[in-house]
């Protein structure tokens, strides 16, 4: 989707303001909101691509005006309501009005270090042949999917070169829609700034792109 999250190439958001000696949290609710989000992810009710897609589907104004933890909190609420884990009324009142739904896992304190250390690798075996090799010239397809995609708008239709091959990874466009991992070859593609922006520059941008986003130049 061409959502508010697809930020690359926008201008007008002002200067980058870095805070000196920035603390990990900026308000009391931030660590709680962060941990709630992480803990609900651990229940296995959705995957990382579904969570990202829910954030992208927030109204554009909410997305742009909220801080990071605030934005994630709103998306989490929407996700849980959509799945029936909570109701909107329960969220508004903070009181349980409907019985809980079964979830795959509830992380207890002793489980947390192991879960965080294990992470969630995105590599998956696949029988698909590798379509491109390092050095190949490719074009990012000009596609405008309605659902989730990780092909940024600024790269669509642009010419690049494969600079790394990462094996076969979960394909977010499928995974975010609950259509399975559908693993595809993942590449890093280097685009020149001249090709992306029409600017006279020798700088470049490297983007991780799955094979379905690419086409040969032939």
């Amino acid at each position: 989707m061409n959502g508010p999250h697809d930020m690359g190439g926008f201008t007008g958001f002002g200067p980058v303001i870095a805070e000196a000696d920035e603390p990990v949290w900026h308000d009391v609710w931030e660590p709680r909101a962060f941990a709630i989000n992480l803990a609900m992810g651990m229940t296995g009710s959705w995957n990382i691509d579904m969570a990202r897609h829910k954030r992208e589907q927030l109204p554009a104004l909410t997305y742009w005006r909220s801080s990071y933890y605030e934005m994630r909190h709103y998306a989490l609420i929407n996700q849980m309501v959509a799945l029936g884990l909570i109701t909107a009324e329960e969220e508004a009142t903070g009181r349980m009005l409907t019985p809980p739904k079964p979830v795959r896992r509830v992380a207890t304190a002793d489980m947390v270090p192991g879960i965080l250390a294990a992470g969630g690798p995105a590599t998956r075996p696949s029988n698909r042949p590798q379509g491109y090799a390092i050095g190949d010239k490719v074009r990012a397809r000009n596609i405008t999917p309605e659902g989730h995609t990780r092909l940024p708008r600024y790269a669509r239709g642009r010419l690049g070169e494969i600079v790394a091959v990462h094996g076969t990874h979960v394909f977010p466009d499928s995974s975010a829609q609950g259509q399975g991992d559908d693993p595809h070859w993942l590449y890093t593609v280097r685009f020149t700034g001249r090709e992306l922006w029409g600017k006279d520059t020798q700088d470049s941008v490297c983007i991780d792109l799955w094979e379905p986003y690419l086409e040969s130049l032939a």
Partner: protein
Amino acid sequence: MFALMNLVGDIGGWSIDEDRSACESMAPGDYITSSYYEHWLHGAETLLQKHGLATRDEIASGRAATPSRAATPTPASSVWPAVTARGSYQRQARAPALFEVGDAVRTRNIHPTGHTRLPRYLRGHAGEIIAVHGAHVFPDSNANGRGEDPHWLYTVRFNAGEVWGGGSSHLIHADLWEPYLESL
């Protein structure tokens, strides 16, 4: 706000392109969450300060603190004639048109830091010239106070399928100046 903006534009002597450029200079979050006439207000405040007609404090307080730069207010009697006068952005062409109706063109993939009327979604796409409008004031120059720099203006037709990929079949038309285009 509509009336005020028209009057201060008249007094201040800036162009519609400078005006659009000032309206676009709002922070994106503010731009999108404010109404159309709030964009105009932001534009007017920006330009009044830029052209030395009012200071930031004066705008905040609504009171004049410094003598104004010499400017002649528009009398009520001249408003109606000004509104109904037929302003034109067409200018004398300085060179023959590069394209004619039926020509296949591609929009340039450019990302100017200043004002432009070439929308991002149409950059780098193939289309066809379907109308030639003569030479018109070029906003990319006029907005930045660099003069009117007139260029040939065309209506270009695009297939939505070419613009967005996929099977969309509707047509999109945009008025584009010659510097935005290259031959296919």
